[in-house]
């Protein structure tokens, strides 16, 4: 967005009182924050509560966010601090971030039952990843290359245009068409 990122534009909206802009930021970062908090807070239900609390703290503090750091960096710190405070309150020690936090099947099932989650409301990351990769594999070459360069390599449209030897507008269109094809496969999974 020129010299302004989507986050900057959305934060500016939030600071003008636009709640929908904050919702967009929540939707953008929700899974990353759950994943981050999950490194500290084992219990899934508690991790979701801590995530929610972190976003609420961000909402309350956002008038003071001046953009000195990226929004996600700022949000990341809030989430970490919220998770650590939660652990202190629970008199637990933080888990080493390097440890694999995959939980046994029994714990997963017990946790679901304890917190009232239904299987329909829980999606396994592997399931989503497989669907996405399957959809990408089925794409025509030019769409697959464009979306992979963007999502996996994090390249800008300009760099992708140079790599693929095509105009930037074509890159934008190819990435969009790739996303549409992936979305078509993913949507039914999320609606099940």
């Amino acid at each position, binding site marked *: *967005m*020129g*010299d*302004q*990122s*989507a986050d900057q*534009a959305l934060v500016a*909206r*939030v*600071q*003008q*009182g636009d*709640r*929908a802009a*904050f*919702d967009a930021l*929540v*939707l*953008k*970062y*929700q*899974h*990353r924050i*759950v*994943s981050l908090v999950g490194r500290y807070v084992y219990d899934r239900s508690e*991790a*979701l509560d801590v*995530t*929610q609390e972190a*976003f*609420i703290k961000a*909402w*309350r503090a956002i*008038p003071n966010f001046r953009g000195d750091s990226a929004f996600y960096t700022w949000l990341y710190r809030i989430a970490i601090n919220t998770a650590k405070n939660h652990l202190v309150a629970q008199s637990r020690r933080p888990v080493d971030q390097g440890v694999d*936090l*995959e939980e046994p099947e029994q714990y997963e099932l017990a946790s679901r039952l304890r917190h009232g989650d239904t299987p329909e*409301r*829980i*999606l*396994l*990351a592997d399931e*989503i*990843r497989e669907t*996405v*990769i399957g959809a990408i594999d089925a794409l025509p070459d030019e769409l697959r290359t464009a979306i992979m360069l*963007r*999502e996996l390599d994090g390249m*800008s*449209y300009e760099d992708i245009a140079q790599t693929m030897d095509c105009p930037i507008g074509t890159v*934008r*269109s190819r*990435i*969009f068409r790739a*996303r*549409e094809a*992936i*979305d078509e496969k*993913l*949507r039914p999974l*999320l609606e099940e």
Partner: protein
Amino acid sequence: MSDMINEQLSALADDELPRGEFPLLWQRVARDPELTARWARYHLVRDALRGDLPTRVAPEIGRSVTAALAGEAPVAVRIGWARRVAGPAVAAAVAAVALLTLQVEEPAGPSEALVVPVTANPQVDAGRFATASGFQWDQAQPEVQTELDRYLLNHTDDAVSTDEVTRNEAPR
């Protein structure tokens, strides 16, 4: 038309939307749940490809945050409130500290007993600050004197405006 909007949304997700296209796109996104859901899915795909998803994904977490925020005051309102309160509070604190500090220093003699501070605002009666306490600013540092005078005057103005705000605000 719909494809054009969706393509803009896709570019926004990549920080590649031209700045001028954002306001109109945002107007649509903000009032269209389908566009909002699409925005969420675009980022879900990204997180999946980059390994940023938690083991188990709860698609409803965003909705629960939104619901939890429903009772929160809008940000802009809170900014206005904070500014109205913070300005006078800071001015009052600085003025109080200045007064306490200066009152420690007793006047040296009768000839220096009453010095009227220089006033930046001629509409304010400067004499009312000098008559009661009988203190004086440090004449050796005129810039400090001017600053302290300004704080006192600003505080007086802010104290009045705070009262007005308090009176005019509806109960929450």
